[in-house]
């Protein structure tokens, strides 16, 4: 994967975490009427989730060269398990 590809990948992971956290916090605010606090806490937790996403994505990229990783047996004939 190219450098630009990695950059877009990681930034998308991080931004998605922050957006999801803020969204959850905002939704809680709307339901519980705790106006700024849910979103503040949600943003911080979203930041954490974004970092977690990035670390997972980086781990996936690092694991790739070793290959040979295949959960389940797979690797059958062309029509193996197709149905």
């Amino acid at each position, binding site marked *: 994967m190219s450098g630009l590809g990695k950059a877009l990948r990681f930034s998308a992971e991080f931004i*998605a975490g922050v957006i*999801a956290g803020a*969204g959850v916090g905002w939704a809680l605010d709307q339901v519980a009427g705790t106006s700024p606090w849910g979103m503040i806490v949600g943003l911080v*937790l979203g930041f954490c989730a974004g970092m977690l996403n990035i670390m997972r994505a980086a781990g996936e990229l690092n694991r790739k060269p070793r290959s040979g990783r295949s959960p389940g047996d797979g690797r059958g004939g062309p029509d193996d398990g197709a*149905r």
Partner: protein
Amino acid sequence: MASPVEQFEIKEIVSFGTIGDAPLALTNSGLYMLVVVGLILGVMSIATRNVALIPNRWQAFGETLYEFVANMLRDAAGKEGMTFFPLVFSLFLFVLVANLVGMVPTAFTITSHIIVTFALAMLVIGTVVIYGLVKHGTHFFGLFVPSGVPGWLLPFITLIEVISFLSRPISLSLRLFANMLAGHIALNVFATFIVSLLGAGGLVAVLAPLPLLMTFAMVGFEIFVAALQAYVFAVLTCIYLNDALHPGH
């Protein structure tokens, strides 16, 4: 001079009136979706028309595509993952052909709109959640509770895992959308430089071939990105489906 984002504008082609306040129309986006689906259906029906033991070129092409997606799915989700083969194959082909059709000059790129990619991503995550809940019941929520975490940290980690799970459709759609949008804007800007330099006249016009070379190189790169992003979308779909099938780890 045309703005670089003008190419993403949605235009109505045939209007069918309105439902409440919402307009109901065939837009250029919808038209290109039909074109993409038509292309896929056309090529696939040619590929499966005269099926023989020794495949002709079209059949070999179809079988290569099938093998590619099937191996990807088996690697990520195991044998049971083949239940979802139709979904992954359709998604992969739709995104791939949509990205490639978008590379045709003056064509509209449907995957450069986040609502389209988000709808595709929600389809994937919806499948994961519904299938996971039906198959594993409450055991599916074990996905959010990692093992080997000290007790006092567990509520925090679980909360973060839940948010991380909710962020999946967003990151899945954001990545595809951002790649297509950025690529098409960059192409448009470089192509516009050629016209501006030529229009400047005199000595400056001599420089016009430089952005032309850059545009030429970028078209190749963008075709590569179009294929790569379709692949990434499909691989991540497989990885998420694996969570629905085996929520244990």
